[in-house]
């Protein structure tokens, strides 16, 4: 099925390109041609061309860049998920904190990441953190929000009878958290992790731009952007690799979920 959709998208792309080229269609001031719409097979073929004269293949360059960005994103994900979860637990235990903090947590996500990223890089760089870690912090900034919201939701989703049961055993708050609230919230948590897994990759790529990091996918995008008029396939190929990285992150979460969550089949998201 996934393969069928891929073929359909390919056909749609090429069909539109053919239609645009034969009718001379323009989108705004852009003409449909090989520059704006390179052939899909050309984009894939470009991966196996040298990235520069006598240099390594483009795919090798992008592979290294993807690994670098993956490190930033993974550290950002772990950081963001931990902070997000901690905040969620805190807010779930106090309606007062919820009312006080939730608006600001929501506000934090309405500020464009592009506005925050340079500040983080300057601020963290000035305190001796390596640049890649600043990028992780930016990725964490996009990661924590869904985790906080869903942790809160999951922890408070617990059945009233189950809480009575725990109280009948004179359970303390930690036992209730560990044996009831946390396991009950796992499906919510993993739903959040799936959103965050892709968001942290986006965060890492965007974070590389103001940090002027050359080693990652963000650096590659910036670089190939400058040569778009001569080799547009390079940028498209980089986009493909970035998308693939996001998918890999997503799949890792799906696999971990399969291992960790044991629930009724109808509850599996």
């Amino acid at each position, binding site marked *: 099925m996934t393969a069928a959709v891929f073929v359909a998208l390919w056909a749609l792309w090429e069909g539109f390109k053919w239609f645009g080229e034969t009718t001379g269609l323009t989108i705004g001031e852009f003409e449909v041609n090989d520059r704006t719409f390179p052939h899909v097979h050309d984009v894939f073929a470009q991966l196996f061309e040298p990235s520069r004269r006598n240099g390594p293949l483009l795919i090798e360059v992008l592979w290294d860049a993807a690994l670098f960005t993956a490190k930033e994103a993974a550290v950002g994900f772990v950081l963001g998920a931990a902070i997000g979860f901690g905040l969620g637990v805190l807010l779930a235990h106090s309606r007062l904190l919820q009312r006080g903090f939730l608006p600001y947590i929501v506000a934090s996500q309405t500020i464009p990441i592009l506005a925050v990223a340079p500040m983080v890089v300057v601020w963290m760089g000035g305190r001796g953190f390596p640049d890649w870690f600043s990028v992780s912090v930016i990725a964490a900034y996009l990661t924590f929000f869904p985790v906080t919201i869903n942790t809160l939701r999951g922890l408070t989703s617990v059945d009233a009878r189950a*809480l*009575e049961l725990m109280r009948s055993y004179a359970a303390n708050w930690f036992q209730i958290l560990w044996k009831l609230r946390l396991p009950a919230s796992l499906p919510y948590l993993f739903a959040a992790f799936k959103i965050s897994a892709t968001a942290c990759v986006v965060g890492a790529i965007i974070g590389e731009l103001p940090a002027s990091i050359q080693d990652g996918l963000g650096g590659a995008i910036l670089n190939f952007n400058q040569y778009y008029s001569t080799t547009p396939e390079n940028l498209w190929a980089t986009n493909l690799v970035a998308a693939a990285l996001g998918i890999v992150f997503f799949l890792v979460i799906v696999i971990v979920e399969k291992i960790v*969550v044991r629930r009724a089949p109808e509850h599996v998201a």
Partner: protein
Amino acid sequence: MSADQAVVSLKGVAKEFGRGHVQALTGIDLDVQPGEFISLIGPSGCGKSTLLRIVGDLIQPSGGEVVVNGKSAHQARVDRDYGIVFQDAVLFDWRTVEKNISLPLEMMGRDRRARGERVRELLELVELKGFESHHPWQLSGGMQQRVSIARALSFDPSLLLMDEPFGALDEMTRERLNLELLRIWERSGSTVIFVTHSIAEAVFLSTRVVVMSARPGRIVGIVDVDLPQPRTIETREEPRFAELIRDVRQLLRKGGGFAAEEAEREEEELIAAEENL
């Protein structure tokens, strides 16, 4: 019967919800002796579930005195003197049957070996051997409720509180589980307080049936069930069984209030609101 040896002793227990807007219970006096099987029956919303939760220290009475095993209801809960069973089995989906049953033992810090042994005994008691590694969703409603009973019995509480445990089951399953519950009760020697809607079920199971009135819930009367023990399938066919059912029904009529399901739902909402405070 004296109050000092009672498992549960209630004196003038009253409960108001929402700052006196709803008078749920008033003037409840009741002593439950060791080994008794007491049913609470009454029209919907008469406060019988509320009364059960007051005994379990899950909600606080607004008046009167509650003594469980010679101490305050709170102390009894902290000492884990009672096990509770709800209408829904309230099993944890992510735990196997075995782990669901041993949940209270885990919280009491019993070691793995002791837990394993106890679970094996209980699985035999509730006839669920071979299902220890099943998950709750793989079991029928009746089996789930048996797991929940085993869980309540796991730490040998002297008191078992049951809130319409078979209310959601079909008639045939219910009758089978009634017999099974009696067998468990005889073997464990614990005291049971059992909330039910069903007159026949109350008479069949109990040593005494406590009949409550419509809101505000009061005790209209108590029917001593003098049917011979142990009860069997034939018990329901005895003429005395029919007489006792008629007695309970008459008391219920005296208590009035053939209230709708709405009263019941309202009681549940009031309890939920109270617990969230």
